[in-house]
């Protein structure tokens, strides 16, 4: 058990390191001039500079050193939560992130909760209702949900719930009510996938012999579905959970842009627009940490929730 834990944590760390390295490679080795990238972040054209100025800027960002050396110094700094200086905001990246993370964390928490409610709610209802037309509609609705662009959902929600009904604010992050609409738009794509997987999982589980046994001993449908089917149907969704949470949370980039919320997502959008390399790299790292951690937790929980799965495969 202890050994399994250590190996899994070690693997997670290796994946994180590799993801950081991959983003470094993409941002520094693709056919783009790193100096020009950073200058365009600060709104300066490279042609306007004298070679001396250029050399000075290269030295300022440490770009005159060999790539390998740059990589190790950046990695070392990133391990100490120092992500360098933002080129467009002229502030340390860690300061900007610390300012903006709480907003996005709240939004993300809302989104994940909505995603779970949406996914489980629709699938549970689809398995529960017996009137055929309703059943068909409920099991087809998620297919529409995965086809809908989340930014468009955001605009639709603003149109209906802010402008027409006036229930929620359309922009900003004042009070919890302003998180509702963006969180719903973030939750929808992932929630729809969750609902699809759960619906087919319910269909399978409800045909299992132990459901027939439960019926035979006279349990009500409600008890059977809640006590016997739900937990077994939910198991296959666990492996997807990491990906779904990541999808919902990265939806913040779009939702915060649509709803003008100044969180990390909006920061990401602006950083890409102004080609602010340090900020982009830091945000990707934060997201990868979240993603890897969620997957790690799911992996560690899995054997607890499903005793049929052992930590270490037994060799016969």
């Amino acid at each position: 058990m202890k050994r399994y834990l250590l190996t899994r944590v070690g693997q997670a760390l290796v994946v994180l390191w590799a993801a950081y390295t991959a983003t470094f490679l993409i941002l520094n080795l693709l056919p783009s001039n790193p100096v020009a990238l950073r200058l365009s972040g600060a709104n300066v054209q490279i042609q306007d500079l004298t070679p001396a100025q250029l050399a000075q800027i290269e030295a300022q960002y440490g770009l005159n050193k060999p790539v390998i050396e740059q990589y190790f110094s950046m990695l070392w700094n990133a391990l100490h939560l120092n992500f360098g200086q933002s080129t467009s905001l002229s502030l340390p990246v860690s300061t900007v992130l610390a300012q903006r993370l709480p907003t996005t964390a709240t939004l993300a928490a809302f989104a994940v909760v909505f995603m779970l409610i949406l996914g489980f709610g629709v699938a549970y209802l689809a398995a529960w209702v017996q009137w055929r037309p309703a059943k068909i509609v409920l099991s087809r609705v998620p297919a529409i949900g995965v086809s809908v662009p989340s930014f468009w959902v955001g605009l639709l929600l603003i149109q209906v719930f802010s402008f027409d009904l006036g229930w929620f604010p359309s922009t900003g992050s004042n009070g919890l009510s302003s998180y509702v609409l963006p969180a719903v738009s973030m939750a929808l794509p992932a929630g729809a996938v969750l609902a699809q997987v759960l619906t087919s999982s319910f269909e399978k589980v409800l045909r299992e012999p132990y459901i027939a046994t439960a019926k035979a001993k006279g349990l009500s449908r409600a008890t059977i579905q809640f006590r016997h089917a739900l937990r077994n149907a939910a198991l296959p969704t666990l492996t997807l959970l990491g990906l779904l949470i990541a999808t919902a949370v990265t939806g913040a980039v779009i939702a915060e842009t649509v709803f003008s919320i100044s969180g990390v997502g909006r920061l990401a959008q602006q950083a890409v627009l102004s080609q602010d390399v340090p900020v982009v790299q830091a945000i990707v790292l934060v997201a990868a940490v979240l993603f890897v951690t969620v997957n790690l937790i799911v992996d560690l929980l899995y054997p607890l929730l499903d005793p049929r799965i052992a930590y270490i495969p037994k060799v016969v």
Partner: protein
Amino acid sequence: MTVNLDNRPAHDLVPAREGSAGAGLAGRLWAAARPVARRPGMLLAGLFVLFVVAAAFVPNLFASADPDATNGPDKLQPPSAAHWFGTDELGRDLYSRIIHGSALTIEGTLIAVGLAAAGGLLIGVVAGFFGRWIDAVLMRAVDVVLAVPPLLLALTIVTALGFGTVPTALAVGIGITPGFARTTRAEVLKVKTLPYVEAARTGGASRLRILIRHVLPNSWGPVLVLAILDSGTAILVISSLSFLGFGAPPPAADWGGLISDGSDYLITSPYLSLLPGLFVVAVVFSINHLARSIEELQR
């Protein structure tokens, strides 16, 4: 073992497809068309996708109005017989702009899915067929790409490559490559152990021949479904990226750009962003439905 009927080398005896013998041409056509005819939804979805793809290549055939022609007096008109989807803030015909915009979006989608399918197929086949350390190295690389959330991976690549239709398409393509690699690998691993591959090996076929003649043709079915399914995903991500402002520069506008432009007029003219969005939903939904129907037919 019976007689070798048509003088082909023994290792090329691929299992015969069901129902191909007997019936005449008309019968065979009907046999092929019947499963499709039984699914009106699939037919409708297919026709709509066909319409959009055709519109991407010859937009003038489907929309006569010039997408960039401004018309001051007619600005911000709601949908009418003259302007099916209304007009935007410069009086440009929105329907025409959507049809012409599909050229950019569909081009991006084809680049993205083409890159992902080609790259993923190559990685998957090599990893699955050769196994050992090649497999280990390739699959770990795929795991790393999968450890970065897709949207952020795309943002990283766009930061490095710059903006426009092709960079965003490449970014999306790289993001969906791992899925293709994994699907292909799983399929190759399955096909590799089937009796006819073993028979071919016993018959003395070289590894390359087995790979190209037996393993590849029998493992691309699920990859095809994935390619169709991922076209839908690619359209959504490409639209998202151009909505965020990383797509084609104005006045050209793909679907995401149109929705973004329209969102400035959400209070007075909601149709400007809602109608292009509805169009995207219809396209992606049709593609998903098509992919699922094909998957059902293959079973």
